[in-house]
């Protein structure tokens, strides 16, 4: 057993996992406010990356300006989605809202294809490709940067949920009927959660766009992000971070051990197994709230 290599796989797996967390935080934000897993988070991530590219490559703005500007635009888009589409479905069965987010994802993919085409484009964040070795262990710099962004966002949201607005969002997440009754604008709260998730999508889109290029395939991150969110507990940001690390390590190390035995393809199997087992054994995830309803 090559322990150094296994350590390398584990460390890089953890970093990759934190990039999944970066994506999953957006899912959790919306779930906390509306109890709906947003199936269009992949589409939003892709759009976030495209907007950054439109501002930097097409409009010629520097990246340091394009990224915050894209965040503002996406913040508005998130609010707009809630206002135009989601609000009309208030009181409807959750499955209808779920289908709406699925439709939105398809719509976003089609729109980006129509506007920017299917050719992959690159985001250059200026992170060096020079290898970084910690002793004998290789670490990817861009994954390190992405993991840093994920942790920074985690801390930022932890602090945000202690602010007045954040407490209102938590109240909505706890009981939106009670929030309504005490005068909290639930619609605005849900809109804000969509807007914040859209801003997170910019961060995830830029980092993943640097790693894999920007095209419609970015929206496929949904599978990993959703697995992380479910494993962590759909309403827990801390859960999303820890679950990301767990999934990243398990899939990276597990695939290395299993691939030679099964002839490849085990990485996807591991992700699927984690998702299925979580739902079967611990449906509220590692850190999610376990509500008991009186019937």
């Amino acid at each position, binding site marked *: 057993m*090559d322990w150094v*290599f296994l350590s*390398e*796989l584990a460390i*890089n*797996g953890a970093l*990759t996992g934190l990039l999944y967390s970066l994506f999953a935080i957006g899912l959790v934000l919306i779930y906390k406010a509306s109890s709906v897993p947003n199936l269009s988070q992949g589409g939003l991530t892709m759009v976030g990356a495209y907007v950054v590219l439109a501002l930097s490559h097409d409009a010629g703005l520097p990246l340091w300006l394009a990224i915050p500007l894209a965040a503002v635009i996406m913040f508005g888009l998130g609010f707009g989605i809630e206002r135009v589409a989601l609000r009309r479905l208030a009181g409807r069965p959750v499955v209808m809202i779920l289908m709406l987010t699925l439709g939105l994802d398809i719509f976003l993919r*089609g729109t980006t*294809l129509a506007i920017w*085409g*299917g*050719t*992959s*484009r*690159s985001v*250059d964040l200026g992170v060096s*490709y*020079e*290898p970084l070795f910690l002793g004998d262990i*290789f670490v*990817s*710099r*861009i*994954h390190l940067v992405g993991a840093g962004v994920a942790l920074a966002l985690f801390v930022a949201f932890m602090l945000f949920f202690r602010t007045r607005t954040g407490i209102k969002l938590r109240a909505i997440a706890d009981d939106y009927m009670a929030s309504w009754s005490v005068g909290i604008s639930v619609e605005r709260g849900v809109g804000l959660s969509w807007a914040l998730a859209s801003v997170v999508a910019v961060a995830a889109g830029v980092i*993943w766009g640097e*790693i*894999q*290029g920007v*095209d*419609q*395939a970015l929206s*496929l*991150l949904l599978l990993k992000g959703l697995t992380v969110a479910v494993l962590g507990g759909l309403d827990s940001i801390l859960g999303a971070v820890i679950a990301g690390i767990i999934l990243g390590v398990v899939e*990276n190390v597990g*695939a*290395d051990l299993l*691939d030679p035995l099964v*002839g*490849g*393809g085990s*990485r*996807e199997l591991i992700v699927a197994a984690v998702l299925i087992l979580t739902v079967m054994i611990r449906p509220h995830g590692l850190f999610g709230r376990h509500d008991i309803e009186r019937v």
Partner: protein
Amino acid sequence: MKELTKALAVFSMVGGAMFGTQALAEPFKIGVCYDLSKAYTFATPQVAQAAQDLAKLVNMKGGIGGEPVEVIVRDHGNEPQRGIECYSKLSREGVFVFDTLSTPVSLAVLPRAREDGRILMQSLVGRGDAVDGTVFDWVYPIGPTYWGQAANDVAYIKQLHDGDLSDVKVGFVYFDYPFGQEPIEILETLSEKEGFELELYPVPLPGSDQAGVWSKVRRDKPDHVIVWMLGGAHVVASKEMQRNRIPMEKYISVNWLNEVDIANIGTDAAKGIKRGTNVVGGQDVALFKEIMTELYDNGQGSGPIEKTQDVFYNTGLAMYSIMFEAARNAVELEGLPITPTSYKAGLESLKGYDANGLMAPITVTAEDHGGGGQTRIEMWDGEAWVPQTEWISEYGDVVWDVVKESSAKYEQ
């Protein structure tokens, strides 16, 4: 006044005859059922644009046998059912030559085309064993199969090691689905035959996470890495190689790596990357220059000019040069109108045809529908692709063994 009337009458007669003939002439149609919206969009817009441009050029020169040609482009979104719908609809409109440029759609359409006696062109996609014309009588995968390409890559590596591969380690990084898995059998056979060590590195779709794979490659230290992936996955791979300090010269890609990928990797960072190709890249090609002069300089191009600066545009020009040449052969052999049978005869009479200088000469026969399967290895030098080999087609016996074995299974 009398003279003017006479002149008008003559003009109207001649004009009527001309335009009348034009209106009556039935165009030779090719059904281009492409995935323009899903998985193949990294290549299909360029290929379709090339097909339309070449059709315009052919028509400007009087068509084929006096008949205009028409390229009908439809999107099937890489969905077999929509591909079949496209095939059926265009068949009803009199189309009998189809090009799908999608493996799943090609596989779905193939049995119907065979049954209906219609021509299915499937260069670079679909069943590799369809080069066996004795089984796949109506299918023409002109160009190299993936088996042939992989074999040629090994032949190139052998050249680099002075004909001795006994101490050589070759890595194979591939998409872990049928497209990527296809060359494994031939590589394993050649590994046994030539004595090189073969390491396999599967990459799950869509190829966005390759960190673990390239860490392993760095540790295993293969001398060369043959890569069977598409589009953006090359960009991810090359970045991981840089991060792992693996020399880019080790990278030998399948033909699906283009100038967009190079731009995304970075023209300098991509220095040393190699690819196997079946067409001449770049713009220093007579046909390309003619299209620029006749169409794009006059604002008549079929799409944005940027799409023409891409090896997949040249691939389209090569594919459709072959298809139009086959139509010319059909007219020469059996006259107008072109029928499925005469077109088939036209294809099978292509001898040493180089697709307007875009390919190694191909010869299609009733037995070999691939035309020879020659490729060459090119290397990106920071500005352009530089050929590293002549056009080669090696290990023909090994490749045809696999072809025959596979086509025999199909026939059963």
